[in-house]
């Protein structure tokens, strides 16, 4: 079993599914000849040809619209938007069209498309390359949104996204692309969509995170363990649909919850989880819910990035606050 990075897991999943299903096509800017700016589509065009691995003009609305049309005609397009900061130009296609086509036509036409996009900060890139827009897509009825936090998750969730009969947005944290390796079998096994994964059980505190914040959160849980605090860690993975069960169950046990995400706090997706706790977990809560997030300001240029990004230490500080609360 190969030890691979997250971005290699993406590539592996694409290779797998393109080989397995002739209707899968990949499209986007620089995805073909160059293999993508992060090399996520490496080797695909060579193997599957320019008919199925398509370098498009520089036009995000077009890319998303092409995917809608391809999907409606029975293909399984996997479109790439080069960075999440350029996703906004696809919102009319995603919100008004991709997510609604099935409902608008009573199921006559469907839209089994995937839109992949690198997201988040942490790699000190130029302006507009560090956005975390998951909350903006989380509430779009008819759209699924997943954020992998490991090579294995990236492989399994991307396969699931491609096979899903409805549109799925896959946000891939750039900071994790090459952050570490793990063994991932190229066995074509998809992970379920719509499921939160309990990475670690715990009895004192529930830490909830996704994407790039999962490693930071696990690191915080390690330190807490060293302090004698048993912290559960849950990787939400699927922003939409959200699977609250494991979170509610864990908080029923711990009574304390810290939600960690990189996007700004206000109207971030952590709000939805906290709201669900206030609705369905209130009686379990022994302490105020805490959100550890990016600040509610514009993601700074690289020199200040370190001050912006939530990290292990910020998670830890919040955990201590929540543990101390009566």
């Amino acid at each position: 079993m190969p030890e691979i990075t997250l971005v290699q897991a993406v590539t592996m999943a694409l290779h797998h599914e393109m080989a397995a299903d002739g209707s899968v096509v990949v499209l986007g800017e620089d995805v073909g000849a160059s293999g993508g700016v992060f090399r996520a589509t490496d080797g695909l065009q060579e193997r599957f040809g320019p008919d199925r691995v398509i370098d498009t003009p520089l036009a995000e609305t077009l890319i998303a619209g092409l995917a809608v049309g391809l999907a409606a005609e029975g293909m399984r397009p996997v479109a790439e938007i080069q960075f999440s900061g350029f996703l906004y130009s696809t919102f009319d296609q995603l919100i008004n069209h991709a997510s609604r086509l099935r409902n608008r036509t009573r199921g006559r036409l469907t839209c089994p498309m995937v839109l992949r996009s690198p997201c988040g900060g942490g790699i000190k890139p130029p302006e507009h390359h560090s956005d975390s827009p998951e909350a903006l897509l989380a509430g779009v009825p008819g759209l699924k949104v997943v954020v992998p936090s490991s090579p294995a998750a990236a492989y399994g969730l991307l396969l699931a996204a491609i096979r899903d009969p409805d549109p799925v947005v896959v946000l891939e944290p750039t900071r994790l692309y090459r952050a570490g390796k793990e063994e991932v079998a190229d066995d074509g096994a998809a992970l379920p969509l719509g499921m939160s994964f309990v990475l670690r059980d715990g009895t004192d505190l529930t830490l909830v995170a996704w994407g790039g914040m999962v490693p930071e959160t696990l690191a915080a849980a390690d330190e807490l363990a060293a302090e004698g605090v048993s912290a559960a860690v849950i990787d939400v993975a699927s922003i939409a649909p959200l699977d609250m069960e494991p979170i509610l169950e864990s908080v029923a046990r711990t009574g304390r919850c810290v939600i960690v995400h990189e996007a700004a706090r206000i109207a971030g997706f952590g709000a939805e989880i906290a709201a669900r706790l206030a609705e369905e977990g209130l009686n379990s809560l022994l302490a105020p819910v805490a959100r550890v997030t990016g600040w509610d300001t514009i993601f700074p240029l690289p020199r200040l990035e370190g001050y912006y990004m939530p990290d292990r230490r910020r998670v830890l500080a919040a955990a201590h606050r929540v543990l101390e609360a009566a």
Partner: protein
Amino acid sequence: MTTIAGPDIPHTRFIAPDGRAERDLPEFARDPEALIPLYRAMVRCRTLDARAVALHRTGRLGTYASCLGQEAVGVGLASALRDEDVFVPSYREQAAQLWRGVTPLEVLLYWAGDERGSDYAGPRRDFPVSITVGEHPPQAAGIALAMKIRRERRVVLCTVGDGATSKGSFYEAINGAGAMCLPLVTVVVNNGWAISAPRTLQSAAATLAQKAVAAGFPGEQVDGNDVVAVADVCRRAVERARAGEGPTLVEAVTYRLGDHTTVDDARRYRDDAEVSRQWELEPISRLRSHLVAAGVWTKEDEEGLLAACAAEIDRAAEEYLATPPLPPEAMFDHLCAELPPDVEAQRAEAVREAAARA
């Protein structure tokens, strides 16, 4: 073909407003009998539009966008397509849709606010109308791309209004279709207005056909009130696309004789005189004059047609009015292949709520 403006943009017309052929008709139109189906289709659509407007006025239909005066564009372009082609319409394309097998009942249901109106029993792969102006051309390009990848000899035809040509998504689509050499024909239905905005407000371009120059493929203008010209130009464009020679942009110059929709009052922003002048160019009486002069259409034919159309539309209207709304769970049943549990619970709640209120 005369070049009227811009960089070598051809303009095609065969039949003058008075019904006379100005030049040799194309092959398919030489036998005037062959034009009768086109004529019938235009009258049928106008009958439906009139009824829909009347239903709205009496509070029995939602907002409706009539294509009064533009019937030749829709019928002409639809007649250029095969069943297996895909039509991607804007919201004023009932003339083309009816030709392709969308039923008057479906049109009425849609504008009544019933999703079943987009579940076309006939052209299963045609897209629903796009209320969002100009957002559908990229999707049309995607359908065309699927056809190209699969090496099918099918074609996509997409219509947009003159206003829609100002949208970036329209441009991204035609430019991308050119770059990828897709089997896509885009017809700009230039009816002179985008709600209150006259055509000149949209662009300094002398023609809308010349938008194709930016995309690197042919663009041409056609008299959109001459159904023979529309059919001819679209046939050629469709065959080019089918032959793998890439996209064409067709600007059909016509006029919106009615209000923008039933909730608009065009007298607020345009001259009655302009509208009166345009009535003299409208497509139905033009083709009728042609057919009558050719001796293939009589007063009796006309009366028979009007009666048949009225009867058909009467039936459709009755059927529409007798169609009960969908139940509340219909809001959820096509959201996605499988409802997430939370939403499933909401579905049950909505059903309970409706039952409790009934």
